[in-house]
């Protein structure tokens, strides 16, 4: 697979809805890879605080590792930021690190 231009990881810091083991494994996989990425403590909080940085994190060329795609889409919309049609949201609430990391890191086999 080709390397996505940008990766955004949400740590969902302020609730226990994403399995801790999944978050830790995905974050470790990203930091130990040679790939650059963005990480935020909590997209919900950024949306609630109307953090202008959310506008920097949109576009077609981004893979967002967070929770349900419908939630992520409308969290961005809530601050007037629109995810591009090519943006992909990967769900850490339902998917395992073993299935997530190959979608992000070219060297990890699916």
């Amino acid at each position, binding site marked *: 697979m080709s390397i996505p231009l940008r990766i955004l990881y949400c740590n969902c810091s*302020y609730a226990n809805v994403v399995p801790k083991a999944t978050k830790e494994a995905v974050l470790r996989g990203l930091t130990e890879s040679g*790939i650059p*990425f963005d990480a935020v*403590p909590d997209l919900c909080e950024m949306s609630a605080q109307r953090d202008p940085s959310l506008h920097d994190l949109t576009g077609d060329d981004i893979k967002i590792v967070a929770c349900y795609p*419908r*939630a992520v889409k*409308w969290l961005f919309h809530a601050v007037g930021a629109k995810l591009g049609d090519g943006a992909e949201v990967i769900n850490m609430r339902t998917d395992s690190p073993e299935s997530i990391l190959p979608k992000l890191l070219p060297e990890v086999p699916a």
Partner: protein
Amino acid sequence: MSATLPIPLADAKPKAPRFRVAVYEGAGAELLPPGARTELVCALLAKGFSVSVIRVNGTVSATNSGTLVVLGQFADAKPERAEDGDAIVHFRDIRNKPTAEVVALAEGIRAELNLPKPGGWKPWFPVIDYDRCTNCMQCLSFCLFDVYGIDADKKIQVQNNNKCKTDCPACSRVCPEVAILFPKYKHGPINGDVVSTDDIRRENMKIDISALLGGDIYEALRDRSAKFKSRFNKERDADKALEERTKCLVKIGEKLDIPPEVFASLPSMDQIRTKATEAAAKAQAALNMQDKN
């Protein structure tokens, strides 16, 4: 942005400017040991910092304004502070510094700028799925805490997310289109999971349950309150009445997954009546405007 979608809070200003920390391992800097890098990123996230890990290949999101703190093991000396367009860049060499000390450097800059420290509350608030919302105003009529409002085009929007009661998803229960999300809720589809036909059927059933309770939850509460007062007057048994009222609230709370704290923070019955009337009037006015248009 589609013209048909309301732009939430067009007049709302961000509560803080952009602030990001970059762990820099690009040109002119040494790589951090993998373990140390992971520990640093985790520690920064835990303190509420947005982090970009910058390497030689690939890109991260741009920071064109605000403050960027760049942490790295630089080959050449860097200025402590520089300007890059509208962004202010602070460089800090982290060679031989333990993680806690590096995090403290970033915290120091954030404190100097008087920026709020994130993480003081669980970000709990409704998010509207405008692909599903029909602008029926049920949520506006229902919420007693002024979370919802309407924009200039009479479209429903979340206006005061800080007034929402933590862990209470009650308004999503009355939405006939399952269009209200609470991303931190434990179950779908309220948490943003895909909405199935069964979900819509279940949501309709919940509305029916609410109707069975006496028209709506507040109506049920009012009825119970009246009964409570009546019984209290007759029996003069405060403990019994309180027990009955508590049972009723617990029952409603369990049905709709509403935390007891929300009931505890409800306004008085008179205030509920006034607020419900006002909210209904506001919703009706918005609906009337839609009909005219």
